[in-house]
């Protein structure tokens, strides 16, 4: 293995793949096929992603019971593709359903960072939006948006399961607009508050 730079006479498989990849990339860019493919792939992934929003199985407080109720036969979030995953590495949406205390601030940021892009955050219930009835508490942060960029706010204490499903609908509309934009680059977006229209 040569670490002194390129030595094209050594048929190292890694170097070969790189070379072939570079050449193909240049060819696709020149013929504008790459542009077309990324538009199509982007649209496809956007469609697949918004139709199957995997939510992290995180239950903080009362709104978690309404989140569970939204998965049950009467309200059935599963028909919209909303499924609960136990691991943050496999989920798209972090549904924050309770107040964030000082002790939980670190774990929730860690969970958010463990989720792969594209990821979205929904603040469900008053406690997650602004601290809720505990806004005066010494231990509760005033909303999860002090830590994590929130995409959709769902007011209510607790919001009914139908409201939560509507919140997922508003998130789907937002995903059509912003697609795979990374979560740090969404500052220009106006926050969506369910019930605001």
């Amino acid at each position: 293995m040569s670490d002194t730079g390129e030595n094209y006479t050594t048929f190292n498989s890694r170097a070969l793949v790189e070379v072939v990849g570079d050449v193909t990339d240049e060819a696709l860019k020149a013929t504008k096929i790459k542009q077309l493919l990324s538009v199509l792939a982007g649209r496809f992934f956007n469609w697949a992603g918004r139709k199957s929003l995997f939510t992290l199985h995180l239950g903080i407080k009362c709104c978690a019971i309404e989140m569970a109720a939204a998965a049950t036969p009467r309200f059935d979030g599963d028909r919209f593709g909303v499924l609960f995953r136990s691991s943050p590495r496999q989920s798209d949406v972090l549904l924050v359903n309770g107040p964030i205390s000082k002790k939980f601030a670190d774990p929730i940021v860690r969970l958010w960072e463990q989720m792969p892009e594209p990821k979205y955050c929904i603040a469900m219930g008053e406690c997650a939006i602004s601290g809720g009835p505990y806004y005066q508490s010494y231990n509760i942060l005033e909303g999860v948006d002090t830590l994590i960029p929130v995409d959709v706010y769902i007011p209510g204490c607790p919001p009914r399961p139908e409201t939560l499903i509507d919140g997922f609908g508003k998130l789907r509309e937002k995903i059509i607009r912003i697609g795979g934009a990374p979560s740090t680059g969404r500052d220009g977006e106006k926050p969506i508050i369910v019930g605001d229209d």
Partner: protein
Amino acid sequence: MAEMWITMGPQHPMTHGLWTLRVKVDGETVTDTEAELGYIHRGVEKICEARDFTQITPYCDRLCYVSAMTWAHSYVMAAEDLLEAEVPERAEYIRLMAAEVQRLASHLMWLGAFGPDIGNLTLMTWCLRDREMFLDLLQELGGSRMHYNYPRIGGVKRDIPIGWGNRLKAKVKLFEHRINEYEMLLDESTIWLVRLQGVGYATAEDQLNAGVTGPNIRAAGVNTDTRWTNPYSVYDQVDWEPAVEKPTSVKGADCYDRYRVRMEEMRQSCRMLLDAIDKIPGGANTHYQPGDEMILTKAPTRAPEGATGFSTYECTRGVSNFYIQGGGDGRGKNPYRLSIRSPMFITIPYVAKTMIGYKIADIPAIMGSFDPCIGETDR
């Protein structure tokens, strides 16, 4: 063999709330545990020192959110003790019925969360579907599916609607058949029996010394129940028995006994409801306006310094107490100190000790069978 500490939580597939259980394992066997609570400590006791007595009821709903009506009832009983308010009998009957419907809904939520812990996902859909029936009943009373803010100091907020009694009777009678369905699904299932029997022994005396109460003690063979040892409301006038279960071994009750005692408690709640709706003074089909003296007596709003109020209440998970000292804010409008005793705060460390010696796979079974609810634990 090297032992290691594994952290389960705060985000974990066990569905019972936000807490961390650190287990020390030697292979698959648990050798030591440590429970860590406080992830949703909201400082409710401090906030309530700046709230009027009527403003505290919504906070009490949110303590144990699965069982909101019972916690609000418990607080209101303590506030009535402090403010020396009387409650009309019809209001007591309505409160009893609301608390028992809530007990049914809470046990269904427990079963709906316990089943998936063991692996039976069917139970979640069935139980939460049946729970919706009772949430509809409570919604007619309180206006919301959870967090009703329904009991008032001196009575209840509004009377039962016309027809509520008939709906209650129809739903309870249907539900009694549904309990048979659950038992048919579970009691003959080998997996259920193998996972629950022989796991998590706890004796009654041990539990009471440690502060564990409620269905967990009744599963160990003695019918200790606050509703008859420290009677309140009209529990001595309706027809019911505390649900008791014979423990499987001298070592105490196992998880299967705790599951069976809650099924039996659901049956007793149904029995209580059918009896109470027939005995309610004024009849089930009359509707009194809010504020009528049949359902609410005007209570004083201030408590002098030095007055105290204390309530003993059988919540769905154990005995809950509220201790209120009056005289806050110099004028007595707020409590000087409101102290809340949550049954689960004591049970969770006890259960953490019970798990020692079993396998990792038994942890959700043992923890789930004691029915934790972290909202009341971390006030």
